[in-house]
């Protein structure tokens, strides 16, 4: 035991356990529960049946009552652990309930029925994942459509952003020309004007271009990002000028220098921008909410919001769809966390 305690309390540096160390670990443990707990609860809840969801107090794991096929009855019957008058306890299936009495049948012996007061029986439950929460929305709602809309918006918008931002960054990083500084100031200046400030006029522009209720209305307005241009330009400035001069000597066109020399060298910065763009687009909400008014063009985020705003909220479907919406971001996080955190630490953007 002494060895173990020593191991648990050992710290690099000074030897003794200071109260701040205890506080730190308590704080962190609490943080893990507070940050991960809600997500875990969401995932567990998403596997519960509608009956399991309205239960109060809620069960931790998704449980549902066992149902059995009994001869002579068309539907499967729910199973109860029943205490009979003589004190014996048996597993019986309920045929129907009349007031406070329920009519039960022995699944082993279908001819034998019992009348039991309902407080003498208890549900028999098993661990079961209600996978239909996930499969039903695929058939019953436009969920698959929302999913594909979100994927299209994310992929196309990211491709457009990477192309035009890297071209602009190349123009600003590689060439010396009159007006370059003015353009840089202009690019940084557009940072001052977030979409929340120009909702009405951008809506007008998008309407004029005939893009309302099409995915282009979501893709195009945010495609040119000042942060992207800035990030890529700063990276491209570090590429040695000699390389570009050498390519020009070899009679490469400017486009070839851009696409075959500079872009491959700027891959790390482009990867960071790609990750950010994917997250921005997948999570985008306010702007799609304004320009997408028909269910066929909804993205996941807008569709989810529409579902939760309905009068009769179908939580079992909403929770499952929320989990699906969460999966891509979680995967990106699991594999690319390091990129994202260093990107944020360096660029101070989100």
């Amino acid at each position: 035991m002494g060895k173990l305690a020593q191991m648990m309390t050992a710290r690099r540096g000074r030897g003794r356990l200071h109260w701040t160390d205890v506080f730190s670990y308590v704080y962190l443990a609490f943080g893990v529960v507070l940050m991960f707990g809600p997500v875990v609860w969401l995932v567990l809840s998403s596997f519960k049946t509608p009956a399991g969801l309205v239960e109060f107090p809620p069960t931790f794991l998704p449980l549902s009552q066992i149902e059995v096929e009994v001869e002579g009855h068309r539907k499967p019957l729910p199973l109860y652990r029943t205490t009979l008058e003589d004190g014996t306890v048996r597993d019986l299936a309920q045929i129907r309930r009349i007031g406070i009495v329920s009519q039960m049948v022995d699944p082993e012996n279908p001819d034998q029925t019992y009348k039991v007061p309902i407080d003498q029986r208890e549900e028999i439950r098993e661990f079961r994942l209600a996978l239909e929460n996930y499969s039903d929305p695929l058939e019953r709602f436009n969920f698959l459509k929302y999913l594909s809309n979100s994927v299209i918006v994310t992929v196309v918008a990211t491709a457009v952003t990477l192309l035009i931002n890297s071209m602009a960054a190349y123009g600003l990083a590689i060439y010396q020309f009159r007006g370059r500084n003015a353009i840089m100031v202009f690019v940084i200046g557009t940072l001052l004007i977030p979409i929340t400030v120009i909702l009405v006029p951008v809506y007008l522009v998008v309407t004029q271009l005939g893009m309302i209720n099409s995915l282009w209305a979501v893709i195009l307005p945010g495609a040119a990002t000042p942060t992207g241009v800035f990030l890529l330009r700063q990276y491209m400035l570090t590429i040695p000028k000699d390389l570009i001069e050498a390519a020009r000597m070899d009679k490469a066109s400017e486009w070839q220098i851009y696409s075959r020399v500079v872009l491959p060298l700027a891959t790390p910065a482009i990867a960071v921008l790609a990750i950010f763009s994917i997250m921005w687009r997948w999570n985008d909400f306010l702007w799609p909410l304004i320009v997408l008014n028909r269910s066929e063009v909804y993205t996941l985020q807008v569709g989810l919001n529409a579902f939760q705003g309905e009068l009769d909220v179908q939580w079992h479907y909403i929770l499952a769809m929320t989990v699906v919406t969460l999966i891509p971001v979680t995967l990106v996080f699991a594999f690319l966390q390091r990129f994202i955190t260093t990107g944020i630490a360096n660029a101070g953007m989100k």
Partner: protein
Amino acid sequence: MAQTDHAEHDTSSLSDRLTALAAWPVHLVFRLLEWPFAALQRLVGIRRMPWLFLAPNLVFFGLFVVIPLFINFAFSLTGGTQLFLSDRPFVGTEQYGFLLDCETFGDPVTCREDRFWKGIYNTATFIFFQVSFMVLFSLITALILNREIRGRGFFRAVFFFPVLLSPVVVALIWKWILLRDGILNAFLVSIGLDKILFFVSPEWSMFWAIFVSIWAHMGFYTLILLAGLQAIPPDLYEAAEMDGTRPERVFWRITLPLLWPNLLVVVVLALIKGVQIFDEVFVLTGGGPGTATQFIVQYIYNTGFTDQVQNFGLAAAASVVLGVVLFFLTMAQLAATRRRDDG
């Protein structure tokens, strides 16, 4: 990254192959664009090529940022319900007059457009608590994560994870927890308290709006502060230890002053984000109960897009007011960032 060499080799060869597969359409597009760009280069000469590369991005900026900025002013000076400017009557500063018409500015009820002022007061309340507690908890978390802690990478990831979640997902997760028969009420009942209908009470709704937005964004600010803490030269701490300086003194005399520029950046960034709060709270509370959690952006959204009569002029005027506030905050951010990076 605790993979064996063998596994790493396998995944890298697979990812190489996937990358090559994903890359070929990209190569194709760049190849196809080669000829037209070469032709353009012959036409305009190499000196004008940068403009050609800049053109697409500048067209987008012009179309979706610069032109809208001017149209926004034009909108705010017109009335009526038509979307197209040519159909809208010029009303001068009437919209601004309507927005700013208050008997006393201290009380939203005395204003003609009380929803706008309610939005401003709500936003101010929200920002005050959200920014102060978020910065406080980000600082504590960053200080703890900066210690020699086992599993530091894991804990950092845990605090950062909610940052990536979409606002809609964040709001739904918490709405599910806070429902009348939700798990939080189950906990309250289990310790002998009564259920609380959180979304019926204005105070609780505001509390949870603040709490949830801190939960979702704290990791981002923690990360910036952590980067700032790690940039503090370790020899300063070593020197302090040799002098036998007390830890509290080290914090107040070394850590805090050297972190101050970063803290300033974090405060201003949080203010800029806070003024524009919309998504999470809109899904969580819908602005309710009544207008208890309706913020400025939701006022603009409602006025311009969801009200029976779409009042674009009024929405544009409110956007201009929001834009002015954001302009000053962004200036403060640039000043703070410059001070940090120079100092």
